[in-house]
C-alpha cells in the first residue's frame, strides 16, 4: 500500500473511533438530559394549565 493511502487510512481510523466513542457517550448521557427536558416541560405545561383554571379560562 502506498504512503498516501496509509496516512489517510490512519486518519480515517482515528476519526471513526472518535466518532463512535462520542456517539456512545452522548447516547448514555443524553438519555438523562432528555428525561430532564421532558420533566421540566411537563411542569411548565401543568403550571400553565393551573393558571388557566385559576383565571377561569
Amino acid at each position, binding site marked *: 500500500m502506498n504512503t498516501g493511502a496509509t496516512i489517510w487510512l490512519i486518519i480515517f481510523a482515528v*476519526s471513526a473511533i472518535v466518532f463512535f466513542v462520542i456517539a456512545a457517550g452522548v447516547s448514555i448521557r443524553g438519555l438523562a*438530559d432528555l428525561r430532564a427536558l421532558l420533566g421540566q416541560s411537563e411542569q411548565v405545561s401543568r403550571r400553565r394549565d393551573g393558571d388557566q383554571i385559576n383565571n377561569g379560562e
Partner: protein
Amino acid sequence: MNFRLIDWIILVVYLALTLSVGFWVKRYVENLSGYLVAGRRIKTSLGVATFAATEIGTITFMYFGELGYVTGFSCFVIGLLSMFAYMIVGKTGFIIVPLRRLQVMTIPEFYELRYSRRVRLLGGIILFLGGVLNMGIFLKFDGIFLSEVLGFGPQAVSLIMLLMVLIVIVYTVLGGMFSVVVTDFIQFVVLSIGMLVCTIAILASIDLGQLGITVAQQHGAGGFNPLVNPRFGWMFVVWIFISNLAACALWQPGTSKALASESPEVARKVFFYTSLTFAGRAMIPMFWGVAALALLGAGESSTAAMPKLLGMVTPTGFLGLLVAGMLAASMSTYSAYLLAWSSVATRDVIAGFRATDFGERATIWLTRTFALAIGIFLLVFGLWYQIPDTAFQYLFITGAMYTAGALGCVAAGIYWRKANNVGAYCALAMGALAPACFLLLEKWRDSLPPWLAVFTDVNVSGLISFVLAFAGMIVGSLATQRRCPPVRLNWDRTAEPSSMMAQPESFITGVGEETT
C-alpha cells in the same frame, strides 16, 4: 431484492415507534419558544446528539459516498476542514455565543436588532431561497439510496420520495422542535449503530491494500492529494474551510440547536463536542465510497455505487437496521430543515411585510403551512432538477448564497462597530451574486465568454461569494458612515424576540435607517 422478512419487521417497528414518539411529545409544546427552540432547555449531551443527527442525513452519506467514489482518498480532507472549522467556533464561541445571549430564534432576527427591519426582510428572503434550493435535492438522493439498498432499482425512486415526504411533513408539522429533539436523539443512537455495522461489514469484505491500488489506478496522485485533484485544488480547500466556518455559526438548522441550548456556555460546548464527530461523519461514508470503487469498479453510477455496495455486504437483519437508521437520519434532518426554513419564512419574510408581528398561534399555524408547502416543493424539484457537478458542491454553492452574506453581516455586526445598513445590504446582495450566477450560467458554460465562464467553476464562484460579501460590507459601511450611522446592539435585552419585533426601537440605542 436485498430485504428479507426480518429486515422489514425491524424497519416497520422502528418507523412506528419513531412516529409515535414524535406525536407523544407534541403535548410538551407550550408556546412559540417551545415549538421553535424547545423552550431553550437543551443540555450538552442531548444538544450534541440532536446537532449531530441534524447534520447527518441520508443525503450526507450520499454526497460523501459519491465524493469517495469519484475522488478517492483526497476528499477526506473535507472531514478535517469541517472538524477544524466547527472546533474553532466551539472553542471561541464565535458568533453563536453572542446570538444565544441575544435570545434570537432565527438569524435574520439579528439583522433587525443590529441593522433594520428591511435588512431582516432581505436576509430572510435570501436565507429562505438558498435554504430551500439547498434542500431541494435531499429527497431525490434519499430516494436513490433507499431504492438501491432495498434492491428495488431506479423505478421505485419516485414512490419512495412521495412516502418519505408525507411521513416527514406530518411529523414536523405537528410536533415542532420537541419532536425534532426527541426523535433526533433516538435516531442518533440507531444511526450510530447502523454506521458501525456497515463499516465493519465493509472492512470484512475488502482488502485494504487493494483500496490504495485501485485509487492510484483510477485517480493517480489526485486520489490522495486534494491540491492536485482536478475537482479540488487550493481554492476549493480555502472555500470549504470558510464555508464550514460560516455554516457552522449561521446555518439555521444547526444554529437553531445552539439557540435552543440552556445557556451560551452550553451552546459553545455543544458545538465543540459535535466538532469532534465531524471528521468521522465525513470520512466514514467517504470510505464506503472508496470501497465501492474498489469492489464494484469505476463503471457504476457515482450516486448509486455506495448504496449498492451497502445492500450487497450488509448482513440480513442489519440491513433493516441500516435502512431504519438512514430513514431516521433523513427524518431528523428533514424535520430540522423544514422547521428552520418555515420559521424563517414566517418570522422573517412574511412578517417583514407587516407593521406588526403575528401572534404566537398565527406564527405556529403559518410555520406549519410553510413546512407543508416546502415539502411539496421538494417533491416536485427533486423529480425534475438535474444537479451540476457533485451533490456536495451543489449543496455548498446553494448554501453560499446565504452563508457568504450572512457571515459578512453577522460577524461584522457583532465584532465591528462601523458595520451599518448599507454595508449589510451590499454584503447580502453581493454574497448571493456569484452562487446565483453559477446556478444560472452553468447550463451554458461552453458558449460563454471567458470572463463570464469563470463563474461556472463551482470552486471559484464559492470563494468569490465570500470575498464579495466582505468587500461589500466594508466598502458599503465605510462609504456611508455619516449618512447612515451604525446601530449599536443592546446586550442587556431579556425580552423574547417576538415582542421585540413589534417595538424595535426599545432594543436599539443608536440611530438606524428605519428609525430616523
